[in-house]
């Protein structure tokens, strides 16, 4: 029998290979789709379903094991380290796109409007920001302002950080109701955020002429906010799982790795948004 003092080492694992197959089929399908092959979307769907089945199966297993007390302190530390370094890798991933924004705004766009490039290639081009480049790629567009929906979204995400922490306090103090309410509020605010962002995108595409194809401004704008929005969705899904588990009575004040991981992730997504608000919208 397992005891709390032993480091739990599972003996075999069937979900990893299933999940890998799902992801691979999904990506191969996407590649086929991009190449214009008709089987692409079917493959993507099949891959996605396999992947979701894996997620449900694997997380259920982990939850069961955790609740039956199979994870000792050492296992908890390994999981926390895992999550921490995963978030670190995500920071590196976002770093690329922030770096791209910095480089294009401060280096490549000014270069395009000066020196030999201007004299020989693009004499009519005035380098400014926002820009879609000397080729006017994607045609006329309006840049996205900061003080409408984006500002509302900033407030939403910031308050969701607060509700998340409030839920955590509830969990620590064994106030289950506070835990559940706090989580539900966090998920709700997250979804609201995604909804507003969808509205923002809709407006950009239909009324402002701003698309992914609007030169470098459109590219960086949609890439950064898009990947962030995707992360909000993922974070909201993780939090919903945690909410669901909390409702089933899972987690104890001294044992709630899944909650912590979800909260860390959520705060990370929050901080990325602040960066976006400042560097993409404000400046």
């Amino acid at each position: 029998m397992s005891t709390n003092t032993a480091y739990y080492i599972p003996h075999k694992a069937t979900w990893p290979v299933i999940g890998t197959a799902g992801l691979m089929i999904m990506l191969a399908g996407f590649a086929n789709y991009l190449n214009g092959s008709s089987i692409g979307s079917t493959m993507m769907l099949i891959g996605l379903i396999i992947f979701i089945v894996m997620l449900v199966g694997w997380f259920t297993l982990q939850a069961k094991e955790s609740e039956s007390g199979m994870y000792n302190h050492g296992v908890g530390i390994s999981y926390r380290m895992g999550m921490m370094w995963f978030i670190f890798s995500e920071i590196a991933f976002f770093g690329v796109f922030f770096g791209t924004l910095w480089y294009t705004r401060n280096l490549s766009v000014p270069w395009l409007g000066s020196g030999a490039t201007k004299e020989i290639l693009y004499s009519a081009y005035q380098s400014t920001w926002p820009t879609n480049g000397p080729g006017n790629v994607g045609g006329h567009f309006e840049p996205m302002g900061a003080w409408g929906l984006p500002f509302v979204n900033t407030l939403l995400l910031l308050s969701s950080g607060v509700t998340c922490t409030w839920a955590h306090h509830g969990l620590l103090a064994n106030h289950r109701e506070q835990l559940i309410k706090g989580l539900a509020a966090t998920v709700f605010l997250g979804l609201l955020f995604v909804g507003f962002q969808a509205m923002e995108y809709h407006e950009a595409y239909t009324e402002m002429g701003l698309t992914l194809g609007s030169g470098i401004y459109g590219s960086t704008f949609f890439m950064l906010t898009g990947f962030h929005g995707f992360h909000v969705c993922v974070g909201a899904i993780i939090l919903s799982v945690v909410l669901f588990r909390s409702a089933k009575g899972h987690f104890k004040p001294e044992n709630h790795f899944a909650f912590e991981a979800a909260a860390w992730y959520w705060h990370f997504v929050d901080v990325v948004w602040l960066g976006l608000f400042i560097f993409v919208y404000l400046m």
Partner: protein
Amino acid sequence: MSAVAEHDDHHDHHDDHDHGPAKGLLRWVITTNHKDIGTLYLLFALAMFFVGGSMAMVIRAELFEPGLQFVDPAFFNSMTTMHALVMVFGAVMPAFVGLANWQIPLMIGAADMALPRMNNMSFWMLVAGVLLLASTLFMEGGAPNGGWTLYPPLVLQPITVGKALPFAIFSVHLLGISSIMGAINIIATILNMRAPAMRLMDMPLFVWTWLITAFLLIAVMPVFAGAVTMLLTDKFFHTSFFNAAGGGDPVLYEHIFWFFGHPEVYIMILPTFGVASTIIPVFARKPLFGYASMVWATASIAFLSFIVWAHHMFTVGMPIAGELYFMYATMIIAVPTGVKVFNWTATMWKGAMTFETPMLFSIAFVVLFTMGGFTGLMMSIAPSDFQYHDTYFIVAHFHYTLVPASIFILMAAGYFWLPKWTGHMYNEKIGQLHFWLSVISVNILFFPQHFLGLAGMPRRIPDYAIQFADWNMISSIGGFIFGASQLLFLYIVYDTIKGGTGEKVTDEVWEDASKHGLEWTLPSPVPYHTWTTPPSAVPTEHVLDTH
């Protein structure tokens, strides 16, 4: 963490204890055992070594003589591209992850890796990534042929990609996920699973170098993933990241790529250093010279690797301040690298040396890696690099740092630890033959490429002017001998697993090895489960001078 609980997914309580491996082939699919997964990684890497090697043989055959002989230029370029990708991501990196899986738990007194299920997944993600990449070989338009660096705008032209590009990009994503998961696991294992008696500054250098390498992996694999994601959107979703007309810049790709790419070369060399630092003291019968300085040198090399990337871009048209900065920063790397070479030499100094195959490969590594380091230093001089850049001189440089360095050390590691893992001794005669054939042919293969490069022969070209004919022919001959010699290694691995010389190896395998590392205190062959209770004391021979 004292004792270790062993369970499977379904809690079958009757056989909680004394679990052997699962029966049949399924064992290898669902295993979470670090030794099984290490074996999978190593065998996969060995297979890819031969796949990538065959591509190199195609390259050398085509270059045997001037003119177009065997393959068409586009296929030739596919071969150079795929050779590099397969060797880097399919052979060298997985081989070191395989060694990490086998050795780290044994060396630090841990029962297994910290996150065994994820360990399984990172292996299969690797296979998935390589499958996607390899599938491009059979596609309309062939495999990617714009070079392993995948530079835009070249790689975005229809003629250079055909249908391959999205597959190559998603392959990079999967390989990235695999590496990141592997690296997270290694960090968690090292930091969380050490025997209580082992402090950080007691850890064998192989463990130290992997800890630092894992950090590099987590920091830069996402960067590469981001770069290729932008290639994907530029190609298929109308973005302008690398398109000047839209305000972007193809040079931006180079910056991002090399911000990944330079640390990537250290990802392949740091564990190499770690293995060399493990093997040399055993056969010199002395403690490693300068343990602490080795640790600090490794850490400083890793740190510097983040701030020197643009030495790959000296000719791209950087501002002069950039050229100067990257030139001096790159030169500084020679300092910690020199510390290491000095320490290996000093370890051997006045040692009671014997020259078994692993030691031979390690000594060759010290000498030949140093040559690669020197050519690196030459290329770090920006004005000189205008001459060397994109010529065979670079090809010679990085092959010296990778083949007689990383690959030789991987071979050395095989000879060194196979007896421990299998309980059988390899055939020393064939091992020595393998070594001498390899070390001679690798120099015939790569040394002339220095001359070719200095004389101006460009890399990645299937045909060349006739003044390059002689050295190319010699290089190709060296290449064929080198390629053929590696079949000996394949044979030795097979033979050793099957029983080798029949000689029963001791637990130590090598004389007094147990003074140097925990793994040699375990029985040979290593049982399926080890260190279910951690060792109470750890060998400290290698850290004598730090205590």
